[in-house]
């Protein structure tokens, strides 16, 4: 069973084709980078995987289930692009809420929340309201919630957005730790160097179509970087 899969998915918004016969699959334990210029359809693909939108045609599976079923999202950590967190809520209360929604109970909640705060380096800000935090710290809170409950699959949309270079380096370590314990990762990002470091496989979307996909080492030619590949396939 794949951690996530799109099979022949087309998605239209009125006349506009956001995704055109897109297929990819993320095997368990693999890290997958979804790349493409703005408007290529990356966020649409993530929204389909989470059941936030339905495909016009084709099939979407999340952990083997239709994503509209809430059971499909069990043990899935999601980090949306520019995550909007409840500004008036305290950091620890926000994380406790998400820990409970993730299915944790009793002492597990406190343990996981503390671990998330510790991991993302925001333990000293736990009692502050989210609205009082900088963009970078709020992004760390968003990361902490995505990691709650040791998810088997992480869906990350532009995860390093808002993080400073130190935060980006930390995020890389958090992702490495998740991968080492066997989590699958789907990362949509513009930061190609991050994807190059963190992902095993990539798919490059352009105008709703996949123009290149496969293991990174097979796609990138000798002497070429991921950025070179990206420019080559997107510009044709």
């Amino acid at each position, binding site marked *: 069973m794949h951690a996530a899969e799109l099979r022949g998915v087309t998605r239209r918004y009125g006349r506009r084709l956001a995704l055109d016969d897109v297929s990819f699959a993320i095997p368990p334990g693999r890290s997958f980078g979804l790349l493409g210029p703005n408007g290529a359809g990356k966020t649409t693909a993530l*929204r389909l995987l*989470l059941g936030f*939108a339905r495909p016009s045609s084709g099939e979407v599976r999340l952990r083997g289930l239709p994503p509209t079923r*809430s059971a499909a*999202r069990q043990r899935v950590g999601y980090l949306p692009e520019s995550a*909007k967190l409840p500004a008036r809520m305290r950091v620890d209360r926000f994380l406790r809420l998400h820990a409970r*929604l993730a299915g944790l109970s009793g002492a597990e909640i406190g343990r996981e929340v503390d671990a998330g705060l510790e991991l993302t380096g925001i333990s000293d800000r736990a009692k502050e309201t989210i609205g009082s935090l900088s963009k970078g710290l709020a992004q760390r809170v968003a990361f902490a*919630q995505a990691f709650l409950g040791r998810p088997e699959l992480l869906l990350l949309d532009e995860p390093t957005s808002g993080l400073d270079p130190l935060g980006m380096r930390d995020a890389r370590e958090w992702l490495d730790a998740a991968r080492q314990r066997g989590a699958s990762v789907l990362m949509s990002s513009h930061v190609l160097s991050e994807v190059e470091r963190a992902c095993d496989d990539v798919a490059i979307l352009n105008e709703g179509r996949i123009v290149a996909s496969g293991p990174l080492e097979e796609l990138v030619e000798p002497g070429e970087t991921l950025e070179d590949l990206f420019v080559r396939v997107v510009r044709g």
Partner: protein
Amino acid sequence: MRSAASTFFILSGEALADATRRRITPVVAVVSVLSLMAVDGCTGCASSFVENGQEIDPTQIAGYSGTLLFTVLALWTCVLAGILASDHLVEPLADGSAALILGRPVGRSAFALARLAGVLAITFVTGLTLLGVTAFLLSARHDLPIDASVLAGVAAAVGWVIVAALSMLASLLLPRIAVAMLVLVGVGSIASVNLVAQLGGTLTGLPFLIDQWGPPLASAVIAALSPWIAPAQAFGSGTELALRLSAWAIGSSAALLVAVRRIEIGR
């Protein structure tokens, strides 16, 4: 995985906490206190009423004035429920914060019902305080039977559910200001036609349809309070009004859930 009921209770607690953190909540509290002061003044008045040169004992008209006061407060809380609901669901959907919740193993129905419950909790506290104090004062000062006000309170509470659910439903389609206007115009229109019908006026066309088939927000409250008015008048069938009120509450909540299941999140 958590049960849907457990998820609903977790989300309801958060929705209530979110509702209490909103800027409108202190305003509601202040308006409620002012309303209670007005109620205290209204129920304590001892003005003299003269008809055909004869002074009438104010307690003789207490039934009418009490019914009017109670109905106005019930409708005011209907408006409150509608205004609070006009952005309580759509705001987290629009700003993306709902996406974090719905990215969890959380059903959309549980999420929507929890947001509705958050609004209703605030409305219930406000409404039950206002209506409860009013009923107590009218009973203590004018001997109006309190059991009628209990039934009227239940009718009002079902009305809050209807207005809040319809307001949330409308908020998925219309901007907040339009929804707020719709709540004011809708509750006002229903109350007007209900009142005209209760006073024996003749209704035709749309007003007739609203009175006969619409949610009987005012009719049901007035009918429940009929023991306050002597001699007893015909206020329509209580059973028919109760069934219609219940059908609207179930129908509006179901319509909200269907709409929430169909919308796209985060676009």
